[in-house]
């Protein structure tokens, strides 16, 4: 065997160190810049910290392998896969997703009510009667029982329903479920403008993005609005609306609609997402 060039250091370990430290840096940077909210629910952050901790420990232990030229022979090409996420995450910084283009559960007239938290009618078809009949017949009573903690948040502020990040989901459920009770009430909320080609000229949806776990399960939820100058609103722009609640029938189903009284443009809130839990 002729002298063959052999590096004094273990290339595989170098690769590993690069990727371990790369992921560590990435995790650290997204947590530090708070861009992490575009990717995952804040509840995941402690897990990410655990991840950082483990990555660093692993790297420390791998360092001592660095100069051991003994190696398990593996294909280095495998490491290309680890390169992909690191690369894409750095070249494509986490800007807010253009909400209207989220194709997963894109809101439209047909499914807007399906995005409500609890169904107001029997789920799907009559086949589910058995399930439903297990439940107390008066659904609002029943709902009060199981979600008392949420109900506490549903307080009207001087006859106005003011929806903010914390009570968005409970209110959404409440309004979709007991819309009759709230008909005519004044409502105030912020959200972004969501438009769809199926909407009428005077309609748009005021929506928020709901994230359960990570970006993969982000969905837009919100209310249909009726506004004369809806066509003047720019999609994805953030607005604050005031209006009255009404109900309309859509695809044989009643859904709440906000009759807009007042609209103002606002800046994008610090956290665009709302979290069901």
């Amino acid at each position, binding site marked *: *065997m*002729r*002298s*063959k060039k*052999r590096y*004094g250091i273990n290339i595989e370990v170098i690769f590993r160190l690069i*990727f*371990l430290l790369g992921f560590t840096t990435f995790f650290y940077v997204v947590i530090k810049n708070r861009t992490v909210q575009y*990717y*995952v629910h804040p509840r995941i952050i402690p897990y*990410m910290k655990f*991840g950082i901790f*483990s990555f660093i*420990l*692993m790297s420390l232990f791998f360092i001592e392998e660095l*100069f051991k030229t*003994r*190696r*398990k*022979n*593996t*294909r*280095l090409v495998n490491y*290309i*896969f*680890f*390169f*992909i*996420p690191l690369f*894409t995450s750095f*070249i494509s910084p986490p800007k807010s997703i253009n909400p209207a*283009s*989220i*194709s*997963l*559960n*894109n809101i439209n007239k*047909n499914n807007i009510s*399906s995005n409500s*938290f609890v*169904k107001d009618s029997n*789920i*799907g*078809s009559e*086949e*589910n009667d*058995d*399930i439903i009949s*297990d*439940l107390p017949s008066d*659904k609002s009573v029943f*709902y009060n029982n199981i979600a008392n903690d949420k109900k506490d948040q549903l307080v009207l502020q001087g006859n106005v329903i003011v929806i903010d990040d914390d009570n968005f989901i409970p209110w959404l*459920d409440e309004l979709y479920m007991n819309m009759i009770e709230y008909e005519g009430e004044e409502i105030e909320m912020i959200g972004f403008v969501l438009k769809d080609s199926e909407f009428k000229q005077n309609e748009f949806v005021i929506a928020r993005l709901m994230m359960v*776990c*990570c*970006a*993969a*399960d982000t*969905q837009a939820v919100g209310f249909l609005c009726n506004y004369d100058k809806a066509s003047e609103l720019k999609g994805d722009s953030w607005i604050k609306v005031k209006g009255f609640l009404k109900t309309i029938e859509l695809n044989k189903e009643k859904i709440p609609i906000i009759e807009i009284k007042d609209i103002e443009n606002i800046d994008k809130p610090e956290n665009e997402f709302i979290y*069901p839990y």
Partner: protein
Amino acid sequence: MKTQIDIFTGFLGSGKTSMINEMLEEYIVYEEKIVIIQCETGEEEIKDDFINNRNIIVYKLPKEKPLDNLYIKEIAEKYSPHRIIIEQNGMDSLDKLLNKLNHKGMRKYFVTNTIVNVIDCRKFHMLMGIVGDNLMTQIVYSDIVILNYGDKVTAEELKKIKRKVKIINKSGSIIDFESIGSFKEYIDEDRKEKWIKKSSDKLSLLMLTCIAIYLFLNIFKAIDLVNLNVDFSKFHILNTIFIGILIESFPFLIIGVLISSLIQIFVTRDMIVKYFPKNKVLSFLMAIVGGVFFPVCDCAIVPVVSRLVKKGVPLYAAVTFMLAAPIVNPIVIASTYYAFPGQPSIVLFRLLIGIVVAVVSGLIFLIFPENEGISIKNLDSQYNCSCIYCNGYRIDKGIKGKISVIFKHAGEEFFDVGKFLIIGALLASIFQVMIPKSILENVSNLEVTSILIMMIIAFLFSVCSSSDAFIARSFSNQFSMNSIMGFMVLGPMVDIKNLLMLSESFNKRFIVKLLFIVFNIAFSAICFFTILFF
């Protein structure tokens, strides 16, 4: 210049000495000074021609004397050779020798060059059974594995051996000695070429890809972005979903590989045999209850299950555990309850159907058992793992050594399995972005089709089991409850991400079988429940 050290390993009678002779024949022309240290002597001797050559010195290590650094240094000082060839005793640990050579004082003067393992094909399987541990280590470290006496076994046998060697050592050259004319040719030309292919080529390929993407992006930016807005935002969403899935699953994967390493190091096969319930009913029960105490995402479960199977847990129990754990896990139950508040029956049905599917799938694997030796890669040496750190572990016991091995092993596995996680996450996010939701609206009124569609979607989207209930809920208006149940039952059990991760340890046949069984049973169970309850 540092002295090169070549190591020949192999068991007695495998033909190490003949190989060295063969090699010397080719390289004598270079007039290098070569010292040969023979740690064992079999029938074959170094040829007299070489012994008489002044450039070649042969040392025979006395039996009781261990090969240590001092000895090698002495020789090096005495002759200052270009090359030392160590013919190692097959029963000695190659690992120990390499550790010695890696010692700081040694690295200054020596560089370990090529490690050659000579295998006697006739005895391969026998040796694997008796001293598999040692044989695996030898193969793992080798740059060249020479299959000797390949003509003495059947062609099929030879193929089998080749495949096994390939699994253990993924990148070394495997040479069938009988089929090549000259050793030199192979090593000189092919090997050099292969080496380039191996790393520098790949590195440069990597570099080129980076540059290409960088260029592409710059051009992309330079072009009027407004026109390309749609594509770009899709890529953006794809990337956000992709990274989101990864950020979420990496910590869980780490938990999984850490648990797997703990099992690897602290749980022996004997313990499993001893303590794992012999009673089949009990073992099923244990598999299901085990899931309750394993409240992690479904991606953490794959490394743990693979490790358990390698440690000797019966396949049917492992399958049941793997399928049940993501559904009976408390976090998942809680999130299902959150997603469908006021409908505990949904939580109940999900649990019930999930457990039924898990148990029935397990039963099928119990009734029609798979050959574990075939289903699971790297099972050859029954108690050993092919990663080098675990072998090293035998040398440095003690708390510090153990912790170090746990993390190294976990790191090794993280990279082995993580690769599949990344591919899976990428595929899942591509499906999420590319599959238009309008397809769903069209099929939602067809009962059976919609169940199937929802199951396929669950499979393709690979949403984490702790959050899929919320996705399911968003479909609840368009789809009937039973198809949503299909989504929630199948999703955590098998999805693209998990199956890819499984392929690190299991063969394709097993994975396809698992997929079919689970899919069929989940489908039947849901139809059954529909008729019964809905």
